[in-house]
């Protein structure tokens, strides 16, 4: 439990640090084509990895369960431009329903 708090402290410091740096540090220090390119790639790579780990991992095993069809429903609804909260709720409902039925 304490470790979770330390993680929160680190996250708070790290995230606020990036925010205040952007507003305060002179542009020429931070803006370089290389850093800009990396800043575009980080959310793509990390969010892709987070989706996969969240949907396929069960501890240290890969499993295909109700989360996979739920993700498919989410993708369909995102494609249909359904609002975020509705999309997330529909995905949860899909998984819950499948687990109830099987």
């Amino acid at each position: 439990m304490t470790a979770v708090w330390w993680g929160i402290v680190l996250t708070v410091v790290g995230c606020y640090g990036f925010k205040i740096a952007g507003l305060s540090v002179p542009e020429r220090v931070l803006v370089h084509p290389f850093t800009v390119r990396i800043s575009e790639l980080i959310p793509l790579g990390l969010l892709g990895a987070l989706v996969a780990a969240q949907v396929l991992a069960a501890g240290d095993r890969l499993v295909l369960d109700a989360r996979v069809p739920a993700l498919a429903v989410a993708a369909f609804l995102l494609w249909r431009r359904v609002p975020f909260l509705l999309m997330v709720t529909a995905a949860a409902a899909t998984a819950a329903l499948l687990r109830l039925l099987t």
Partner: protein
Amino acid sequence: MTSDPSDRAVVADSLGVAIAVGTYGVSFGAIATASGLSVLQACVLSLLVFTGGSQFAYIGVIAAGGNPVTGAVTATLLGSRNMFYGITLAPLLRLTKRQKWLAAHVVIDESTAMAVTRDTTRHARLGFFWTGIGVFVLWNLFTLIGALAGEALGDPRTYGLDAAVGAAFLGLLWPRLTTPSARLVALVGAAVAAGLVPFTAAGMPIVLGGAAAVLIGLLLRTSREEAA
């Protein structure tokens, strides 16, 4: 509130975004407590981290049984984009030193989006602060509601809350998948992370998958420049 109709239009747009985004704090709160965090920890994350992607990333790693430090690294890396928002915002908002310390906390995707499209400093500030503070108030309120509900629910899997986290990450990723190379980079991140799940400690597949994807993205750019 001002009487200028163009000011009012900016404020109305901002509040619309604030309501749409702030209310999904309920899913963050519910998932956070379902992942094993306390109500207080969920609320502190929303109050002090206040950048949705990073908050979801942190609880995602914790829920997977990962090390909190790995969670913090993932969350912080994901928050690095806010620095680039700040760089874009600084000349638009023209804040004093003291204002910056407060404004920095509400530099997020939505407040940036609602400021950068404005032609004047006045409208940029209105868009930025009404959206940023509006999201902040609602996001925190709904985090608390969701956290209390999540704690009362019991096993999160019964309600599909574990599937909701994956959907939330996909929702954050979706608007960024605008080019073939962006889709490829995200796919590499996903594939490497999935491949590493059986072989590394929980949480590590995310960091390593993200790192591999960034590397591939850089190589893609380089080879295209050489071809051009």
